[in-house]
């Protein structure tokens, strides 16, 4: 999925949505959906379920690299700002210290590294997740409201090359879904 911009299927149907009762049932269903070769699908849970990333065959998040880059940028910018101020922009002798008194620059350098890193973590996470996204076809489903309470879902998009209206639906029913429905887009 692209990191920015909303990526939704065209056409009247978004995909199929299956509801499971417990994290264990969802976990085993995800393993089977993964093994069946689906790619454009997702699991929806009220809380992060331990190990589900591997059960879905997902790659590691790239977010740490974004944070590293942002953190180093912030620290470098902080150090550069202080150096510029005291050596070039406004050189002033204060209590006999040298203009380039770098040990005194450590706290602000560190703080700005943390600030940029934290901003990178939050806004990087939102960008990778394509949030905010207040409209999504899954919200058409009334049962899906329980995803933030106590229900566990698997959704498979019609765009998935392996999607088949009857076979995909049967797969999810066979995996123990307590309810399966088609969701319009």
């Amino acid at each position: 999925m692209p990191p920015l911009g909303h990526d939704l299927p065209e056409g009247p149907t978004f995909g199929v949505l299956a509801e499971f009762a417990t994290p264990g049932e969802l976990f085993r269903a995800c393993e089977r959906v993964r093994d069946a070769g689906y790619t454009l699908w997702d699991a929806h849970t009220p809380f992060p379920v331990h190990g589900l990333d591997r059960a879905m065959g997902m790659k590691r998040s790239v977010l740490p690299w974004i944070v590293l880059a942002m953190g180093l940028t912030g620290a470098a910018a902080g150090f550069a700002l202080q150096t510029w101020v005291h050596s070039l922009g406004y050189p002033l002798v204060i209590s006999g210290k040298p203009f380039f008194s770098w040990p005194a620059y450590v706290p602000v350098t560190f703080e700005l590294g943390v600030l940029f890193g934290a901003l990178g973590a939050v806004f990087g996470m939102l960008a990778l997740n394509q949030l905010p996204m207040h409209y999504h076809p899954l919200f058409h489903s009334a049962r899906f409201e329980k995803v933030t309470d106590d229900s566990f879902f698997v959704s498979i998009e019609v765009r998935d090359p392996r999607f088949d209206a009857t076979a995909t639906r049967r797969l999810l029913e066979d995996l123990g879904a307590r309810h399966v429905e088609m969701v319009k887009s």
Partner: protein
Amino acid sequence: MASIQDKALYDPVDGRPTLILGAPDFHAVTEAVARPIEQKTPAGWWFFFLPSVALLGLLGVAVAWLFWEGIGIWGLNVPVGWAWDITNFVFWVGIGHAGTLISAILFLFRQKWRTSINRAAEAMTIFAVMCALIFPGIHVGRVWVAYWMFPLPNQMGMWPNFRSPLLWDVFAVSIYGTVSVLFWYVGLIPDLATFRDRAKTRLRRLAYGIFAMGWRGSNRHWQHYEVAYLILAGLATPLVLSVHSIVSMDFAVSQLPGWHTTIFPPYFVAGAIFSGFAMVVTLMVICRHAFRMEHIITIRHFDYMAKIMLVTGTMVGYAYAIEFFIAWYSGNPYELFAFQNRAFGPYAWAYWTMITCNVVSPQIFWFERARKSIPLLFLLSIVINIGMWFERFVIIVSSLHRDFLPSAWSYFRPTVWDVSCLLGSFGLFFTMFCLFVRFVPMVATAEVKAILPQADPHHEVRPERAGTAAGTAPAGEGAY
């Protein structure tokens, strides 16, 4: 309540007692957290909210008068150039630190019990930092040039002095506040989505929906989300340690006997966590009772927090002792005088109040019965915060009031405006906290669900331990 305590069940996967009592299902957790927000405003809430707003009004009056008249309305004067203003600042920043300790450091240490209290503790952090930021803002006198604290290009070509700890403090505390808000908000997103989906009215659906940003519990989102949360915890941990270290450098980097001490950074951090945990205990005792959350915020949580208060209180006591030892061992007569004056001079009453509240009183937490007694915990949490306020007062005022020139010696007395600013800051803090418990989920619902035994996807495939779920400890294993 006693019946809930008796129902400590054992997690069938790891064999430990469950952290959340009464074995609720996922929906029951949602309901328990939603009740304070969705019920009709209880009378008790107004009982706390109205006095808080009144005190907040007092703060408004005091600050307005301060801006109009200048800092001469306070009792401070040469040589006591800093008094209650900076005492209040350090006090409030310190309160905030326990929130970050609970949310970030205990998260990195995989202390699952934190999930019941981390949301409220993080909110406490944010409100405490708000209170703290008021004081350096208003104590400069000429508030209309307060923006000089920030490195903004200006027509005078002037820049702040980055070699000064006071400027490090501006960066440390404002960035600490910013990162705390980010961390808190990221944690809130899934819970705001819960309230969006439960909303009965359109206004609620819109209000919670806008801030939930369209969260739909996608596991592809949870993956990035969990990484972001872990990284924020990893960033907030050194940040929180740096913040109070830098606050302590406001004093330690100066040349003043009583302030010029290398022990200050770790000593201040320990004291901050000490007072912050006391404030968490104060707030949680009230909240769990008022909102009937005894099964989520359990006696075990208070037991753990009491242990942390015992440890940090004793560390603070150690620092008090080492300061005296170094004052004698250094052979510096000025240093020795400052400490003798602190303990036996005109402010001896404040010093011994501090010792009694901070060092003596938490020692009762060596006893398990004391750690599990809610009335005693509540009382001591307030005593500790009184003591920690006095600690900052003693450090600041007792070091300043007898400077190098005996003819300048004086004795600081607060005016009504000093008292108004302190009480007013409590008004701000409790007003914000009352609004928080009424409109924002007070417990991290998603995180609490994730630590329930049935949240483990392999929970039900361990039939050999199924018997342990019935409420008895597995044979041969201790309570923990």
